[in-house]
C-alpha cells in the first residue's frame, strides 16, 4: 500500500501540475508533492512496507538507501527550483555564449517532467523484477530528455539528441541482456525461473553460466551507459552542461545512482551463482577506466559545468571500483554513493547560481565569486573540498574506506592508480575552482539580480551540512543500512 502511494503520488502530482495554469500554484504543487514523497520515504525507515505484485515491487536495503537519497535530494532541489523558475520566467532570453535569442520550454512541461522523473526513479529503486527495472530506467530517460531541452537553443538540442540516442542504444542492449538472462534462467525446458531478484538468487545454482555472464556484460554495458561509465559516458558532459542546473543536480545526484542500482542487481545474481569474481573484475576495469578518462578531461577544462560532469564520471568509476573490490570497499562504495549524490547536487545548484550571476560557463571568465556571491562562494569552495575527498567531509571517509579495501586485498597497482587519479583530479579542480572563487570580478560581468535569494542558498547549505556531518559521524540506522546493502554485494 505504502509503495503504491509512493509510486502514484508523483504521477498524480505531475498530471495536476500539467493542468495548473497559475505558475505559483504549480510550484507549490511541486514542493508539496516532494515533501509528501520525502515524508513517506522517511516512514519506510520505521515500518517496512509490504511488497506488491507478488514480489515484483519490493523495498530492500539497497533500494531503500537509494530511494532515500533520491527523495531527499528531490525535495531540496524542488525548493531551489522554485526560485530558479521564478527567475527564468521572464520571456525571451539572450544566450550568454553566442548572444542569440532563445525561449524556454513551458514551465508546465518542466514541472510535469520533473515529477514524472521522480516517479520513474522511485520505480527503479523498488523494482525487483528485471523487466520492470528495465522499463523504469527507460522511463527515466524519456522523462528527463525534455528537461535537458528546457532552454530551447541548438546546443541544448544537440545535447538532448546525444542523450537520447546514446541512452536508448544502451537501454536496448540492456533489454538484450534481460533476454539473455531469461535464457540463462530457462531451466533446461522445465518451468523457467521467474526473473525476480529473490527467486534468481535462491535458485542461482540452476542458472546457465555462459548466458548469465553474457547477460551480465550486456546489462553492465547497457546500464553503464546510463550510469556514465567510460567509455560509454559520451552523453554526460554535454547533457550536464546544457541542462538547467536543477536538472543537472538531479541527473548527477539521483539518476546515475539509479542506473548504478540496475548494475548492482545483476551483480547480486552473479554473486549468488558463484560468478561474483568475474563480475568484480569487470567492475574494477570499468572503474579505473572511468577515473582515468575523467582525470584527463578535468585538467584544463574550460567549462565549469562540464568539469562537474566529468567529476560525476570519476565518482561513478569510484563506485564501480569499490563494488569491484568487494568486502569493506563495498561498504565504502555505498557510503560514497550517498556522499557523492549530496555533494554533487549541491555543487550543481551553486554552479547554477554562478551562471545566473555571471552569465558565462567559462572558468576563465568567472572571477571573485567569494565577493560577488559570498554565500554561494563559500559553498562552492566547500563543495570542491568535499567532492575531491578532503577531510572532514563525507567523501573523504568513503574514499578512504575504498582505499583500505584495496590495500587489504594487496592490490597495490589498483591502489596506486586510484590515488594518482584522485590527485590529478584534485589538482585539476583546484586550479579551476579556486581561481573562480578568488580574485576581483570584472565589473561588466557581474549582475546579481536581487542578491542571493534564500531559496537559492538554503537547500545547498543543508546539503553541505549533511555532508559535513557524515564526515564526522554516521548515524546508526544509516550504518546498518549501508552494511546490509554491502553484504548483498559480497
Amino acid at each position: 500500500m505504502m509503495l503504491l502511494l509512493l509510486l502514484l503520488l508523483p504521477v498524480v502530482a505531475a498530471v495536476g501540475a500539467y493542468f495548473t495554469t497559475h505558475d505559483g500554484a504549480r510550484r507549490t504543487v511541486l514542493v508539496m508533492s516532494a515533501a509528501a514523497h520525502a515524508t513517506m520515504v522517511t516512514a519506510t525507515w520505521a515500518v517496512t512496507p509490504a511488497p506488491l505484485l507478488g514480489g515484483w515491487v519490493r523495498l530492500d536495503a539497497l533500494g531503500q538507501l537509494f530511494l532515500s537519497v533520491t527523495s531527499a535530494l528531490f525535495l531540496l532541489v524542488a525548493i531551489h527550483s522554485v526560485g530558479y523558475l521564478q527567475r527564468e520566467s521572464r520571456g525571451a532570453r539572450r544566450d550568454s555564449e553566442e548572444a542569440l535569442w532563445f525561449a524556454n520550454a513551458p514551465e508546465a512541461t518542466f514541472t510535469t517532467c520533473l515529477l514524472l522523473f521522480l516517479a520513474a526513479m522511485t520505480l527503479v529503486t523498488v523494482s525487483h523484477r528485471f523487466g520492470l527495472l528495465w522499463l523504469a530506467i527507460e522511463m527515466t530517460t524519456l522523462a528527463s530528455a525534455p528537461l535537458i531541452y528546457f532552454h530551447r537553443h541548438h546546443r541544448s538540442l544537440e545535447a538532448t539528441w546525444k542523450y537520447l540516442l546514446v541512452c536508448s542504444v544502451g537501454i536496448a542492449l540492456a533489454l538484450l541482456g534481460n533476454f539473455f538472462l531469461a535464457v540463462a534462467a530457462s531451466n533446461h525446458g522445465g518451468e523457467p525461473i521467474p526473473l525476480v531478484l529473490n527467486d534468481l538468487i535462491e535458485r542461482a545454482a540452476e542458472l546457465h553460466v555462459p548466458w548469465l555472464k553474457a547477460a551480465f556484460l550486456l546489462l553492465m554495458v547497457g546500464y553503464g551507459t546510463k550510469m556514465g561509465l567510460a567509455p560509454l559516458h559520451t552523453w554526460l558532459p554535454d547533457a550536464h552542461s546544457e541542462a538547467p542546473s536543477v536538472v543537472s543536480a538531479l541527473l548527477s545526484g539521483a539518476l546515475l545512482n539509479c542506473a548504478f542500482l540496475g548494475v548492482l542487481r545483476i551483480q547480486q545474481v552473479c554473486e549468488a551463482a558463484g560468478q561474483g569474481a568475474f563480475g568484480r573484475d569487470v567492475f574494477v576495469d570499468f572503474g579505473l577506466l572511468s577515473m582515468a578518462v575523467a582525470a584527463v578531461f578535468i585538467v584544463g577544462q574550460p567549462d565549469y559545468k562540464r568539469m562537474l560532469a566529468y567529476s560525476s564520471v570519476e565518482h561513478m568509476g569510484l563506485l564501480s571500483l569499490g563494488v569491484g573490490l568487494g568486502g569493506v570497499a563495498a561498504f565504502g562504495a555505498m557510503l560514497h554513493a550517498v556522499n557523492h549524490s549530496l555533494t554533487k547536487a549541491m555543487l550543481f545548484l551553486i554552479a547554477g547560481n554562478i551562471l545566473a550571476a555571471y552569465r558565462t560557463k567559462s572558468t576563465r571568465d568567472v572571477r571573485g565569486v567569494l565577493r560577488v556571491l559570498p554565500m554561494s562562494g563559500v559553498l562552492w569552495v566547500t563543495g570542491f573540498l568535499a567532492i575531491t575527498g578532503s577531510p572532514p567531509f563525507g567523501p573523504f571517509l568513503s574514499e578512504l574506506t575504498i582505499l583500505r579495501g584495496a590495500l587489504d586485498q594487496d592490490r597495490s597497482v589498483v591502489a596506486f592508480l586510484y590515488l594518482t587519479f584522485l590527485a590529478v583530479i584534485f589538482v585539476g579542480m583546484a586550479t579551476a575552482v579556486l581561481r573562480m572563487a578568488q580574485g576581483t570580478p570584472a565589473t561588466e560581468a557581474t549582475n546579481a539580480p536581487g542578491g542571493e535569494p534564500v531559496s537559492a542558498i538554503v537547500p545547498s547549505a543543508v546539503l553541505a551540512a549533511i555532508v559535513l556531518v557524515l564526515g564526522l559521524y554516521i548515524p546508526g540506522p544509516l550504518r546498518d543500512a549501508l552494511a546490509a546493502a554491502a553484504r548483498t554485494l559480497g
Partner: protein
Amino acid sequence: MSVWVDTALVLLALTSLLLVASSRLTRCIRIVAFQGSILGVLTLLVHHDELVLRTLMLAAAIVALKGAAFPWLLSRVLQDADVRREVEPLVGYISSLLIGTLMLAVSFWLSARLPLPRPAVSSLVVPIALFTTLIGLFVIVTRRTALTQVLAYLVLENGIYVFGVGLVQGTPMLVELGVLLDVFVAVFVMGIAIFHINREFDHIDTEQLTLLKDWAE
C-alpha cells in the same frame, strides 16, 4: 516449418545488409518497413502450433507499428527535412558491406560459443539476431544523418526482438511488449527531436552537431 523460419531469418539478414549499402533515405525507410513485416510473419511462424489470440494481436501490432506507423512517421519527417540522399557516411558503402560480412562471421562465431540450454525453433535464430543487432549498432556509429541513426536503432530493436520471439519462452509477453514500448516511445521522441533538429539547424547531418566538445578548434 523450420525452412520457412530460416527463410524469414535469411531475408532479415539480407535486408540488414541492404540497409548498410543504401544511400537513399527513402529506400532505407522502406527496407526497415519491410523488416517490420518480416518480423510479424516470423512471430506467427514461431508460434504456429499455438496461434492464440494474443499471438495474433502481437503480430498484428508489430506489423502495424514497425511495418507501417514508424516508417510513415519517419517519411513525414523526411519530407519536412527535404533530404533525399544521405551525406557520405564515415565508412564508405563498399567497406560497410565488407564489414557487414565480417560481422556475420562474428555472429556465427559468437553463437557457437553460446550453446542453447534448450533447442530453439531454428539454429539460425541466435546468429541472425546477433547479426541484426550488430548491424544496427554499426550503422548508428558510422552514419551521419539523424534519420539513418533512428532507422538503425529500429534495426537494433528488430534484432533484439528476434531474440525475444525465438528464444524466450514462458513469459514472453512482458518482454515483447517491452520492446514495442521501447521502440514506440523512443522513435516517437526521436522523431520529434529530428523535427526540432531540422528546424534549428536546417539539416539533419549529425556530423555537424559538434559544437559541444572538449578541445578547442
